[in-house]
C-alpha cells in the first residue's frame, strides 16, 4: 500500500501566524505551537474543522479507517448521477445535495463499480492518465475519502 505523504495539516498561507515545517523539525521562530506531537495536533485540528473544510485543506477525518489497495468501493444506491461532456454530476438523493467531478474524478467515479479494488482502479488510472504512481494513489485516495465522507460511496 502506498504511504500517504505527510503534509502540513493546514497550508501555511491560511495560518500565517504558525509555521509547521514538513521535515518534522520544531516550529520556527514565528510559531507559537506548544511542544505537542504532530498526530495529536492533527487530531485536534481535524476536530475543529467541518468535514468540507477538512477536505479542502487536505486533512482527513482522524477517525476514518485508512484506505488500502485491497479495498472495494462502490457508488451508493442513494446517488443519481450522469456524465455530461465528460464530467459527472451527482445528486445525493438522501440529502438533496449536488456534486460535480472533474474529468479525472469522473473517470474514477465510473470505475467505482463495487467490484474493482482500489488497487485495480489505481492501475487503471495510471494507464489512462500520465501520472506517477504516488500521485495517482494520492488523488484516488483523496477523492474516495471525500466521497466516503459525503456518503456517496460504500466501502468493503
Amino acid at each position: 500500500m502506498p504511504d500517504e505523504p505527510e503534509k502540513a495539516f493546514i497550508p501555511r498561507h491560511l495560518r500565517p501566524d504558525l509555521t509547521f515545517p514538513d521535515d518534522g523539525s520544531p516550529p520556527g521562530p514565528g510559531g507559537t505551537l506548544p511542544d505537542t506531537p504532530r498526530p495529536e495536533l492533527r487530531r485536534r485540528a481535524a476536530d475543529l474543522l467541518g468535514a468540507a473544510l477538512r477536505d479542502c485543506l487536505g486533512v482527513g477525518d482522524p477517525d476514518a479507517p485508512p484506505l488500502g489497495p485491497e479495498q472495494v468501493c462502490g457508488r451508493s444506491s442513494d446517488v443519481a448521477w450522469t456524465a455530461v461532456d465528460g464530467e459527472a454530476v451527482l445528486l445525493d438523493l438522501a440529502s438533496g445535495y449536488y456534486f460535480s467531478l472533474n474529468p479525472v474524478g469522473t473517470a474514477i467515479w465510473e470505475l467505482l463499480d463495487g467490484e474493482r479494488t482500489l488497487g485495480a482502479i489505481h492501475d487503471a488510472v495510471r494507464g489512462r492518465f500520465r501520472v506517477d504512481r504516488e500521485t495517482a494513489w494520492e488523488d484516488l485516495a483523496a477523492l474516495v475519502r471525500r466521497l466516503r465522507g459525503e456518503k456517496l460511496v460504500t466501502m468493503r
Partner: protein
Amino acid sequence: MTGTGCESPYDVHGHGVRVRTEDAALAFSAREALGGFGPAPDGGEPMLEIELHAVARRTDVPVRPSAAAVLVGHAPQPGGTVGCAMLRDGPLWLLDFDDAGLFALDLDAGRVEGWLVEPGRMAPDWAASFVLLAAIELLRTRGIYAVHGAALEKSGRGVLIAGPSGCGKTTACLALARAGYRVLSDDHPLLRFAAAGPELLPFPGRIAVTERTIGWFPELRQAQDGFRQDTRKRSFDLADVAGYRTGHACRPALLVFPRIMECDRSVLEPLGKARALEELLPQTLLVLDAALAARQFQSMAALVRETPAYRLYFGEDVAALPQRIDRLLEAA
C-alpha cells in the same frame, strides 16, 4: 364554488388539479395560482387534490410530526425568506413553514393537505405561492416539472431563462416579449419529457415586476389599472399590454442563465453542459421522494445534453438582448 370557498378542478396540461377550501382568501389564492388554466374535464386519471384550511394560530394546525418523523432538509419558503423544514413522516412528507403553517404531502395518493395561518393577512402573491408549491409537487409525480425561470417561444422554438430571484429573468423575458417573443411564463414554466423529447409548457398567470423593471419598459404602464402591489413587486396581466403575447407549448431550443452585472454591455458566453446542469437543478428539483427526484434528475440531464446553454452577464443594454438571442436561436 361552495360557500365562501371553492372546489376548482384545473386542467394543467392534461392533469386535473382540484383545490378544495372553505376559506375565501385561500380560494382567491388558488385562482391566482392556477386560474390561468381552464377547467378540467370529468373522468380520466385521478385528480391531483389540494385541500387547504385557514387557521388562526400555528398551534391550531391539527397535524404534528410524529416521533418517527425525520428531518430531511430545508427548502426556501415560498415567497419568503425563512426556510421551510422538510420532514419524512411515514408515507407523508411534511413541509413545516413555521409560523406560516404546514403542508402534508401524500405523493403516492396525489394529495396535499395544508393549513395556513391567517391567509387573509398574507400578501396575495405570497399566499398564492403556497398553492403553487402544492401544485408543483403534485405535478412532479406526473412527470411535469416547474422551473424557476422565464420561458418564451418564437417560431415554435423555446428559450428557457432560469435562475434565482433577482438574476434578471423577468427583465430578459420582457425584453424578448417586447421584440415579439411569446411568453409562456415569467416565473415558473413547466417542462414535460415525452418520447419525442422535452417540451416547454406555459404556466399562465400574472407577471410580477419591480419598479426598476417598469422603468425599462414604460409601456407596461398601460396595465396601470391592472397593477397590484404584492410583497415586493407589482403584478399585471400580460393581456393588458399591447404588443405582448402569450405562447404555446414548444421544444426548448436554448437555455439561458442570467446574472445581472454592473456593466454597459451584456455578454453571452457558452456554458458547459455540466455547468448548465448545475445551474438548472437548483431551479427545478426539490428532493423529496427519491425515485421521483432521480427521474427528474435524468430528465434535466437529457435536456442540457441536447440544448445549447449560455451564461448571460446582463448589463445595461437590455434592448440589445433580442437580437443576440435571435442569433443564438438561429444557430441552435
